[in-house]
């Protein structure tokens, strides 16, 4: 007897792998949440007027700041480009500019106060008559907006269910149920891996990643469904039992799925590699939902589908009063 890769016996093993990742992810999420850039930290802002801008366009300001930070042995996490200050009511520029460096919360206030004094005295000395103001602020974590999160989750659930109903009509309810299991699995596993890997993300990113997981998961599973439906029409497959049919079919359809996955992966990698750091930080982690969806579509999905295929076959056999060749032989024995 040929041993098949896709067998119900292996399902508990793969389900356990997913469960372990999920549990670890849930625990880490409960303890630390996602590694969302909350904006908390210490900001070091230098505001200067037109005297400085006319003299050198503000480049010297940044040079002085960065030299001072180097000499004190502190590194900033991010720097906002020099931004024009605005009038409160008209939003017109008032001639002043502010450059802001953001430091981690653990950088000591004393060191930053020392940097402030050094920068202020250096710049005031260099630019006679200029107004230079340096200030260090302690910024707390940003407020979290709950409504976009719960509405986003509801939106994805509703949309996925509607889409799965359509898939049910087109490809059969067995594949729909499998698709539902895979979509839920992929979204949860993606979020769990996001919590485990501690990849730094923007506040909106986890929701977009969940959406990406839904899209990729449904897309890849649909590719499988299309190939299965086409292949199972072949009369040779009608005589096979569910396990054999699925294993045979996936020998060819897995190749197609891998082509699609490779195309998507190339897109994420190229954009991630070429684009600016912020864009890269968004696109490269997208390989996470892609990897999860690929795993579930190539490994978990077919195993989950096996019992449903068996039920489908049984119900079809009853309807058609037809028993597959192998089953008929077994029955005769």
């Amino acid at each position, binding site marked *: 007897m040929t041993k098949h890769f896709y067998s119900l016996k292996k399902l508990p093993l793969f389900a356990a792998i997913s469960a372990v990742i999920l549990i670890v992810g849930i625990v880490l999420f409960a303890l630390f949440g996602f590694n969302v850039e909350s904006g908390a930290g210490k900001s070091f802002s230098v*505001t200067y007027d037109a005297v400085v801008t006319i003299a050198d366009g503000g480049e010297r300001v940044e040079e002085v700041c960065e030299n001072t930070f180097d000499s004190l042995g502190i590194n900033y996490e991010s720097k*906002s*480009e020099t*931004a*024009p*200050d605005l*009038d*409160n*009511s008209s*939003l017109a*520029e008032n001639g002043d500019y*502010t450059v802001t460096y953001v430091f981690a919360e653990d950088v000591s206030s004393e060191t930053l*106060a020392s940097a402030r004094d050094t920068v202020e005295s250096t710049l005031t000395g260099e630019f006679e008559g200029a107004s230079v*103001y340096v200030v*260090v*602020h*302690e*910024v*707390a974590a*940003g*407020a979290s*907006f*709950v*409504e*976009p999160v719960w*509405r*986003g989750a*509801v*939106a*994805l659930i509703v*949309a996925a269910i*509607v*889409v799965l109903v*359509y*898939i049910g009509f*087109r490809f059969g309810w067995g594949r729909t149920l499998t698709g539902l299991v895979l979509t839920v699995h992929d979204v949860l596993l993606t979020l769990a891996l996001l919590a485990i890997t501690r990849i730094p993300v923007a506040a*909106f990113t986890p*929701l*977009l990643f969940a*959406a990406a997981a839904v*899209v990729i998961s*449904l*897309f890849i599973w*649909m590719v499988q469904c*299309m190939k299965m439906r086409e292949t199972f029409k072949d009369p040779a497959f009608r005589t096979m039992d569910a396990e054999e049919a699925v294993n045979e079919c996936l020998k060819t359809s897995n190749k197609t799925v891998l082509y699609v996955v490779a*195309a*998507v992966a*190339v*897109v994420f990698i*190229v*954009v991630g*590699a070429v*684009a*600016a*750091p*912020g*864009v890269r930080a*968004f*696109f490269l982690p*997208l390989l996470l939902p892609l990897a999860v969806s690929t795993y579930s579509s190539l490994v978990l999905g077919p195993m989950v589908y096996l019992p449903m295929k068996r039920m489908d076959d049984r119900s079809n056999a009853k309807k058609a009063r037809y028993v597959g060749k192998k089953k008929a032989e077994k029955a005769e024995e």
Partner: protein
Amino acid sequence: MGKVKSAICLALITVVIAVLCVVCFVPFPCDGNGLNYFNSILGIAEKDAELGGYLIGETEYVGGGYTAVLYPEGVISGRDYENDLSASAEEDQAEYAEKYSSYADGAIYLEKETVLDGTEVSESFKKNFAHSVEVLTERIERLHLPSASVNVVDDYTVQVSLPASYSVAGAAFEYLGRMGELSVSFGSDASSAETIIPAQTGTEHPASYYIKSVTARTASGVSYVIFNMTDEGRAAIANATSGASSSYLYFNIGDEALITLTVSEQIDQSSLYISGSYDKDSSELVAAILDTTLESGTEDGLALSVGELHRDYASYGNSAQMMLYIALGVLLLASLVFFFVRYGRLGFAHLYTMLVYLIAMTLCIWAIDFLTLGMGSVLAVLFGAITLSVSDAMSYEYARKEYATGKTMTFAVKSGYKKCFFHIFDAHIVLAALGFITYFIALTELSVFAFTLGIGMFFAGLCSLAVNRFCWYIMMPFAKDKAKFCRFKREEVEEDD
């Protein structure tokens, strides 16, 4: 189709696509001195706070957003303190300095009389400030703005960031910080107006006893702020305005009027629609402020006023957009290389299809009001492009298989498309439905991603099933050897000796 007709069609399509490509993607100076500049549609499409701001004038971006620091009464910035101190007369300086206490290493100064209880910040101030921050956060959340944020800075000031694409950012900073109770007064001027809807939160008749909610609505290009009145509220306003000729209704937060409504006749309505000069953004802003005040305004509300305000450039840096375009260009090139290598000159059909898709998406992002070019929309456009490429490849492969079995090229194309039609249709309809349904429920970045995905899938499906096939159809007559044109081969059959 004959060769001549095909040539005409192909020439026309090529010209149209080329012109649209230039209009959509290629900015260029219109004269030698660089004063007049043609900006591409992609250039003037709104960008989000991460990738960049919107375009003002011809070439200048207004940055990714605006950030303001809001100060409660009794708190001033260190800079204002220093400026005020140096501006005051020498004999008054000691008195001025005595009024304030330095906080957060001089970053802010607290007025002793208002804020402090002895040497510590008073509990009532802490409580009122926390409540004001809560109300402010609720207001900003209700605006559903992508990339908006609220951070408490130095314990007693609030830093608010709004995207530059928000058309009423300036007004928002000014009004969002208004705190207090909601009241409605009626009279010929603000000072003598009589309060007709008393605001006595926690007593028998709070404002919510008269007004159920305040909402915003935009219909047929007109935006309204809507007061949904209870029977008591309706009666109170009807009684006050009976016989009115030229008076005003004032909708106040604390002591300041947010809406002044001219009244020329009795108002007796269960829903009071106020249009004025509102647009969608401003009506939603006013409704959010009034409704949150109705729900949680208190007499002790600590108003927040705008201090420093500056512009933020795109948070991903100035080069992010350009680098992203380069990455997308590399991907387009890679996709074309694959198609030209595998399908020969049929790659041109894919090129035309992909360009039509990209042009359509660019025009949509530019023309549809709430769409911005950001990470979500770029991701959705990429999903569409991938699905389009996969669909094109699938249709070519099906045609290849049909041709290999011995059918003529025309029949192979027809039969191939027939066989894969529902695969392509299903894939696109499913993802488009996913996008549009998500859009109707989700907010902010996710809704932008979802809607872009929806229209992306629609155009990708249309391009793959219609444009691609049509391009193939009109390009084919030029090939002497049609199989070579597509790099298709017949199956080799071993003949028996």
